[in-house]
């Protein structure tokens, strides 16, 4: 009993550790990556005993210290309770969402089979959408509590955008759910180990390309990243719904945004890029379609799978950051038009076409 | 296993709180929110009985109650908005008499 609780606690700690560390590293990638894209050097002024670590010291040590030591104020006629509550509500969903994302297959220690997923709920992906829908509150409440018309404008825009793209996000995933035949994310990750025509791993990217594009776009819009960052609108609303926040509260919003990037990347990896699957890697080693096998000890396979998962997540995070610094911002009516008039019908069409193909092939689903 | 009547008592208390809110508050929005509270109390009763009797019917009914509550909240709020545009008030006392 105690050992079971300890294992669950260890997995939960690993997941939170993962998300928070990636969020920090992403802050560094953002600053340095944007600098590379814009042909400048980026943040490199802070250093410890002359070691500036390519800007790592600046982003990971100096920035948090700076934000924690800034003055923490509440606007004059702002709502005290809600102003303090909003950053918590913004930071909570991305952390808890990662609990159901599997980061590995099973770890067999002695006679104990540990499922490498912090929480195995049978509703799987619905839990993720439920937590994502709670993300709206951080924006709306933060905007309202600031007693600032520009802030309210950014918050209302943000909430409308988030609610609109939630729908497209949910519908785009239905195609993948139909193909893999289950709601549980660990089962979806396992089902992507099947080989189509003997050599192609059944990743969602190959089976549901349109679903992937719609999902990724809708998820980036849901997390209010550029090109969908009108709620924040740096050149218009200064900082939109979190303009009246400074210090640790702003750090919560800021870190929450990066944690959301990690969560979106983790979810996209699990649904469309095979999760922890490395092509042809089974629990005991590589089994290539030609017949060659490379046998690995169990722990080696587990390390490879977890490492593969982390690499894929990092790649998708990097992709989101590159998109941020390459694309101009959408106008608000363009955002709404894209969400309702383009992505939603496309997602519905994707569901219908997927259903037709599944029935036509009569193969059933790709359950493991 | 928590006894069934604990859940029923909790549901009854929340329902009574909702009724108090509807009867006593003079703000239409709070009244609609208290109605949502009452609906939630009823949902809790259904789910508790579903678990106790081992039948999924309770959960299906809750599914439909949520759907209807969503529809009702949407239309109710639209009515509140259009009333507010005319009367600039959210106090049900001021909405007692039809305009002459």
């Amino acid at each position, binding site marked *: 009993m105690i050992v079971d609780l300890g294992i669950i606690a260890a997995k939960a700690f690993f997941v939170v550790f993962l998300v928070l560390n990636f969020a920090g590293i992403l802050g560094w990638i953002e600053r340095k990556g944007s600098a590379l894209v814009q042909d400048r050097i980026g943040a490199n002024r802070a250093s410890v005993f002359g070691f500036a670590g390519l800007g790592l010291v600046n982003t990971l040590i100096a920035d948090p210290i700076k934000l924690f030591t800034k003055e923490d104020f509440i606007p004059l006629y702002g709502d005290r309770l809600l102003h303090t509550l909003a950053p918590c509500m913004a930071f909570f969903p991305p952390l808890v969402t990662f609990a159901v994302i599997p980061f590995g297959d099973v770890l067999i220690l002695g006679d104990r089979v540990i499922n490498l997923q912090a929480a195995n709920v049978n509703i799987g992906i*619905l839990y993720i959408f439920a937590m994502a829908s*709670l993300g709206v509150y951080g924006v709306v409440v933060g905007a309202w509590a600031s007693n600032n018309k520009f802030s309210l404008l950014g918050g209302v825009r943000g909430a409308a955008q988030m609610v609109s793209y939630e729908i497209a996000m949910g519908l785009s995933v239905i195609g993948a759910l139909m193909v893999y035949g289950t709601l549980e994310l660990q089962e979806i990750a396992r089902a992507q180990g099947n080989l189509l025509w003997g050599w192609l791993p059944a990743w969602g990217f190959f089976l549901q390309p349109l679903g992937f594009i719609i999902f990724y776009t809708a998820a980036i819009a849901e997390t209010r990243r550029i090109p969908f960052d009108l709620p924040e609108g740096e050149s218009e609303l200064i900082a939109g719904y979190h303009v009246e926040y400074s210090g640790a509260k702003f750090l919560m919003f800021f870190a929450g945004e990066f944690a959301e990037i990690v969560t979106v990347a983790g979810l996209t990896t699990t649904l469309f890029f095979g999760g922890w699957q490395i092509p042809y890697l089974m629990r005991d080693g590589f089994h290539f379609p030609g017949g060659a096998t490379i046998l690995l000890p169990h722990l080696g396979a587990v390390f490879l799978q977890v490492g593969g998962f982390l690499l894929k997540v990092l790649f998708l995070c990097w992709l989101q950051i590159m998109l941020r610094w390459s694309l101009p911002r959408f106008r608000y009516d363009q955002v709404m038009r894209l969400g309702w008039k383009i992505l939603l019908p496309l997602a519905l069409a994707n569901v219908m076409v997927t259903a037709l193909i599944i029935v036509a092939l009569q193969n059933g689903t790709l359950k493991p | 296993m928590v006894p069934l009547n604990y859940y029923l008592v909790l549901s009854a208390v929340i329902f*009574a709180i909702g009724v108090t809110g509807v009867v006593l508050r003079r703000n239409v929005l709070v009244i609609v*929110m208290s109605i949502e509270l009452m609906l939630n109390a009823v949902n809790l009763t259904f789910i508790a009985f579903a*678990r106790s009797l081992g039948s999924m019917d309770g*959960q*299906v009914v809750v599914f439909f109650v949520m759907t209807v509550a*969503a529809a009702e909240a949407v239309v109710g709020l639209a009515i509140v908005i259009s009333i507010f545009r005319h009367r600039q008030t959210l106090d049900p006392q001021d909405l007692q008499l039809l305009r002459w």
Partner: protein
Amino acid sequence: MTAPVLIFFVLAASSIVSSLLVILQRNVVHSAMALVATLFLMAIIFLTLEAPMVAALQILVYAGAIMVLFLFVIMLLNPLVSESRPMVWWFFGALAAMLLAIEFVALFLPVATESRALPEGFGSPGMLAQSLFTDFVLPFEIASIVLLVAIIGAVVLAKREI
């Protein structure tokens, strides 16, 4: 006092406190946030009652969409005035509510608990979908029409000019 009963008491006390906050707060936005907290706690209670699908739907639909709509409307209408009501009414109202609650409690306390064995996968999306698409397919289709009517009605009612 086993662990499930303890968890239930904590959840029950918290949900009663937040429901009281809903009706007692002067600020409407605070009432709405208290209602969100109540809905979230209700969802957790549903989880303990072997209804994970309904719990997810509660957070997704109720706490995640309907309450956002409430907050939108509250912020749009921006009610600044706090209502007045003489204390005597609150006293009588609280008395009546307590009488109602006591009657309900007296009615519900002697209910016997029958605990039947739950079928495998009780409360999972699969079982809910099975009920929905076989026994309850007509209400399911009617619910979609109800939602359509609600959408059209809301748009017509809230438009500035038709």
